[in-house]
């Protein structure tokens, strides 16, 4: 029997969720309606089971309705929809069948617990509109309430059918390719969305010609996954041939790995080879850091995309047997005020994307119990169709855990733990045939990944125990995350040396009916794959039982070098591991170096009034304005280790340069700082120098809070357009060169990296729009004593302010150039790498250890003006600036974005020592370490220069109301 239960707020209760919805109305260009009751929301549950009406009533009371604030109605279906009031419109929104519905899954479990077992259930939302036209309600439903990728909606009452999916044919399909010519091979690649080029298809053809058979569909999919850009980084490994005749033997090897090798930092414990980079922390513990992107999924389903992006990178941490302890997020969106008319077809509004992405990160991070402590939001029209979502995860582990990994051994069981397998993520590059199902809608809906953080939290608890269960060592030989490509990638990689026999029929599924190839390739979330000695499986299983985590034995590592996958009697994959992992032909890609920027050295002149106005305009620029509303929806306190928070100062609204965590309190005061650098504006004028700025910014932010500049490791994340375009590959090449130069300059090794290419949108006219070339540098730096870390808020009126670093008329790619759109500024040089910066950072760090630094804030977007304003805001104090001591031209002094600069408040009693120490260090280093007193802290709340004054209230008002 099928029942429908409707739960609504009691009349005396505030209807808080629709209030949010009314805010969202702004995103489709409507101002919120004053009357709160204009839109109300109710919750709908569909319940199927052999239950009486009394039992349903009991279940609803017990599980579905809060008796204080809510009331419910129920009825047995089918029954006609209720009549509506004349001035009302009602719509209902539900998930497509097969989409992960965590609430419904918990309801199934709880119903069993109260002896009212259900055979199926689903949830939906019912919205009632008063005072709207039907057309308006339709627009709201289509644009705000329902994402057609995962949901559908209906007027008044959602027709719903219990989901009992039909079984797909399980027999592998044989795909003849041996006799095909080049054109036909490419057609196979395109039809099956394999994303393989001709050389790769030909390599596969030769392999099967030698085998004297044709491939199965599952084999082609396995090859396509293993050879995908995502898994093997074809572009970063390709031979790059430049138009000026040079050949680069792989960007990754030549620039990124090479930098790490040249720096030879003994504290780098693992770089580039594992799921995450690992550095030394204390005598007993190590730290790991990984940053991933989840761009395309976030563009089409922002909540699920960002949600599973964070879930995925957290599993990378577990994949090095580390326990996740903190998250980061850097987001790039189009301006939130983009007119709807400018949206290309099929593109969600940037405000909708931003809200969904932020909610997705909030949901996963908070529910995992991880503090999200560092991040940035960057707005540029170039991200309209391709938003970027960078999610980072930091892990901590005793050294014994990862050291216990010896790699899979012959005879080890292949064990999967965590979530069940469904049709999640089968459409993208892995969706092998549109003809696979009669019900395309069902499969398409089910193909989107929705996260289930509580299942992943279970796997975290399991790894916490299992990673140290054998005298501090893990009870498994190897572990990896099951991400893109599903088991095909995870098992395939782990079996690369040994070979494996995999049996698919043991896999636990979310619902019946999955075909063999679906089981093998599903990208269902929250799964980890482990290699476990047969004698240890029982103990692992016991740990899993404690946390209700499901464990599946998928087979064993065979030792014959063959990857063999079977389903019952059928063999669906039988591939040589050597071919699978080494058979991919190397690409040769042409690159055109970017032209040298044509520089101009004549700067515009602005009046004091104009300078004052630019100051305010910068403060309200969305890239600079307060992000407090976003930061506060993330828990940044859980774990109790957050010593320097993302928001600091008297009112806890000042933007910290970096977060500092002390994860071993109270036994150890050592900690680490997390920071980031991202400057796509500079990439537009000088991609080589974009790398300088990104690396300097990440390093300088970490140093600003107390990280030891000799102990900073960095991560690279490249998001680019199509690298087959030689000019685009040229900017990528230039940025990699810049990365190498800057990493060596600061002696900051890369420990991990990731690239996301082909971030382009093809419009209806056939024009390609690539995102701005975007390099994110994330830094993790050791803070030797967190009690000496420094926040950016001013402390004491009368204290002198010192500017470290040299200010030059470097405006290329600056935010002032962007705001003014003045070509004279945009064509000025982009910020260079300051020769003195490493020595300045070392000396600053020493000064912090001596207790000579009261506050410190870096100079970045908007230059000194913005830095000084933010320091005033954070302390609700003032600053007097002597601009002429910074640079003879006020414009340069205020707004230039030269690298290597920090504004430092020094306690008056230490000012002389502080200044002298930089002079002395400069003498030792035989070059000048720029350190000049340029002002002081004022009790009076205002930013004062000889040209203008801005009261604190005005700074605050502009900074808190983004344009």
């Amino acid at each position: 029997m099928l029942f429908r239960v409707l739960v609504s707020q009691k009349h005396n209760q505030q209807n808080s969720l629709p209030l949010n919805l009314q805010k969202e109305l702004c995103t489709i260009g409507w101002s919120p309606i004053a009357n709160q009751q204009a839109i109300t929301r109710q919750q709908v549950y569909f319940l199927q089971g052999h239950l009486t009406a009394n039992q349903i009533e009991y279940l609803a009371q017990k599980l579905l309705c809060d008796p204080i604030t809510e009331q419910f109605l129920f009825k047995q279906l089918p029954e006609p929809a209720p009549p509506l009031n004349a001035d009302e419109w009602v719509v209902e929104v539900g998930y497509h069948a097969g989409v992960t519905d965590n609430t419904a899954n918990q309801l199934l479990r709880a119903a069993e617990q109260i002896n009212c077992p259900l055979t199926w259930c689903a949830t939906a939302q019912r919205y009632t509109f008063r005072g709207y036209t039907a057309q308006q309600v339709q627009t709201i439903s289509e644009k705000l309430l329902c994402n057609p990728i995962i949901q559908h909606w209906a007027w008044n009452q959602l027709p719903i059918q219990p989901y009992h999916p039909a079984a797909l044919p399980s027999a592998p399909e044989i795909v003849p390719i041996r006799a095909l010519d080049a054109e036909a091979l490419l057609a196979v690649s395109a039809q099956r969305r394999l994303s393989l080029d001709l050389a790769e298809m030909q390599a596969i053809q030769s392999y099967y010609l030698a085998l004297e058979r044709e491939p199965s569909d599952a084999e082609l999919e396995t090859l396509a996954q293993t050879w995908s850009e995502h898994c093997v980084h074809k572009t970063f490994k390709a031979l790059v041939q430049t138009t000026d005749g040079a050949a680069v033997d792989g960007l990754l090897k030549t620039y990124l790995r090479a930098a790490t090798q040249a720096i030879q930092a003994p504290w780098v414990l693992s770089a580039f080879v594992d799921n995450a980079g690992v550095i030394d922390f204390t005598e007993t513990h190590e730290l790991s850091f990984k940053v991933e992107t989840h761009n395309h999924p976030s563009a089409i389903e922002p909540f699920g995309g960002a949600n599973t992006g964070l879930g995925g990178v957290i599993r990378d941490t577990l994949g090095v047997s580390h326990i996740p302890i903190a998250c980061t997020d850097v987001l790039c969106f189009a301006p939130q005020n983009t007119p709807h008319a400018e949206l290309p077809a099929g593109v969600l509004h940037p405000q909708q994307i931003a809200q969904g992405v932020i909610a997705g990160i909030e949901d996963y991070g908070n529910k995992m119990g991880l503090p999200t402590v560092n991040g940035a939001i960057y707005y540029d029209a170039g991200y309209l169709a391709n938003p970027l979502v960078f999610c980072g995860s930091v892990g901590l582990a005793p050294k014994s855990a990862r050291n216990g990994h010896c790699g899979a051994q012959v005879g080890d069981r292949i064990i999967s733990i965590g979530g069940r397998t469904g049709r999640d993520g089968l459409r993208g590059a892995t969706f092998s045939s549109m003809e696979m199902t009669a019900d395309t809608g069902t499969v398409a809906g089910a193909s989107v990944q929705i996260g289930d953080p509580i299942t992943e939290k279970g796997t975290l608890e399991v790894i916490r125990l299992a990673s140290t269960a054998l005298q501090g060592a893990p009870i498994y030989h190897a572990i990896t995350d099951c991400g893109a490509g599903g088991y095909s990638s995870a098992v395939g990689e782990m079996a690369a040396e040994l070979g494996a026999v995999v049996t698919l029929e043991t896999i636990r599924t979310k619902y019946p009916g999955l075909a063999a190839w679906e089981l093998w390739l599903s990208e269902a979330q929250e799964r980890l794959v482990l290699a476990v000695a047969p004698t240890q499986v029982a103990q692992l299983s016991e740990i899993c039982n404690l946390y209700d985590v499901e464990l599946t034995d998928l087979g064993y590592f065979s030792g014959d070098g063959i990857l063999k996958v079977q389903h019952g009697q059928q063999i669906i994959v039988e591939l040589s591991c050597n071919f699978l992992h080494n058979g991919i032909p190397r690409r040769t890609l042409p690159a055109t170096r970017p032209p040298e920027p044509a520089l101009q050295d004549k700067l515009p002149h602005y009046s004091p009034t104009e300078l004052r106005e630019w100051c305010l305009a910068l403060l309200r620029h969305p890239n600079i304005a307060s992000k407090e509303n976003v930061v506060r929806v993330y828990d940044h306190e859980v774990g109790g280790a957050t010593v320097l928070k993302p928001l600091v100062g008297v009112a806890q609204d000042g933007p910290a340069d970096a977060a500092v965590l002390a994860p071993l309190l109270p036994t150890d005061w050592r900690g680490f700082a997390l920071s980031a650098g991202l400057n796509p504006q500079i990439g537009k004028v000088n991609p080589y120098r974009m790398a300088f700025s990104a690396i300097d910014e990440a390093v300088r932010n970490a140093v600003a809070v107390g990280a030891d500049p000799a102990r900073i490791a960095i991560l690279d994340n490249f998001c680019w357009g199509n690298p087959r375009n030689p000019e685009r590959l040229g900017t990528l090449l230039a940025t990699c060169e810049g990365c190498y130069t800057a990493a060596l300059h600061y002696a900051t090794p890369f420990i991990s990296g990731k690239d996301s290419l082909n971030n382009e949108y093809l419009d209806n006219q056939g024009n390609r729009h690539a995102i701005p070339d975007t390099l994110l540098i994330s830094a993790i730096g050791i803070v030797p004593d967190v009690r000496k870390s420094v926040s950016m808020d001013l402390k004491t009126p009368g204290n002198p302010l010192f500017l470290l670093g040299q200010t030059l008329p470097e405006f290329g790619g600056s935010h002032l150039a962007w705001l003014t759109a003045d070509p004279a500024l945009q064509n000025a040089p982009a910020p260079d790498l300051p020769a003195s910066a490493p020595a300045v950072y070392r000396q600053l760090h020493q000064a912090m250890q001596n207790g000579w630094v009261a506050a410190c804030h870096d100079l970045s977007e908007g230059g000194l003006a913005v830095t000084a304003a933010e320091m005033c805001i954070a302390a609700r104090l003032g600053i007097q600036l002597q601009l002429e001591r910074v640079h003879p031209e006020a414009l340069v002094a205020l707004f230039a974005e030269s690298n290597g600069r920090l504004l430092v408040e020094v306690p008056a009693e230490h000012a002389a020592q502080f200044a002298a120490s930089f002079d002395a260090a400069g003498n030792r280093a035989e070059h000048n370490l720029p350190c000049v007193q340029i002002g002081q802290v004022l009790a009076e709340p205002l930013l004062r220069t000889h040209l203008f004054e801005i009261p604190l209230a005005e700074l605050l008002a502009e900074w808190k109301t983004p344009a």
Partner: protein
Amino acid sequence: MNPKALILHANGTNRDRDVAHALQLAGANPEIVHINQLRRAERQLADYHMLIAPGGFSYGDALGAGRLFALDLQTFFAEQVTAFVASGKPVLGICNGFQVLVKAGILPAGNFSATLTHNQRGHFECRWVHLLPQSSQCVWIRTGDAPLQCPVAHGEGRFVCEDAPALASQQQIALRYALPDGTPANGQYPANPNGSVLDIAGVCNPSGNVLGLMPHPENHIWLHQHPNWTRASANGLALSLFQNGVRYANQC
């Protein structure tokens, strides 16, 4: 001997280790016990001197924060928990744990019906708050103590009670949100971060041995957790709450 504290872990619990640190520092002997261990009788609730329902997102907050964890208590351990509470031993529910105690009917008890529902602003929020100790009969706090400071991190923390003033007169309002100067927040955001009636941040049962609160005192047990320790203006350490509980457990 240090009192033994059982920290109950359900799937999705996440501040269990934070509160274990706090209890340890306060002199207790904490143990994190998964609900499955209690169900299998590998541990007995009666063997412990303190019971803690910690923060987190038990079962993902599905069907309302705390509801399914509360259902576990009611389904599997109703008698044991009732006996524990009745014996006068100290019980503490923090954030999700508070939601659990309220939805299981353990708080506020008496004849009150109350719930914790969505914040007035409709979303999760993490920020530091000031808490005024109010109840003279709650064993976890002492009236007259300086306000405690600690973070809130929740989306469903608005306390709703049809007869809140009576709750006050019966000394069951344990903690109220306050302004930095120590006066009640009077509903003012963000001092009262969620819109709770009468600025209620925590309530206790009529006998005062069970306390539930939305904020996280376990995240302010060291000076350097305070957001303004760099300004040398950190105070309101919340460790005292755990010390009071441990002291009381020792007398039980």
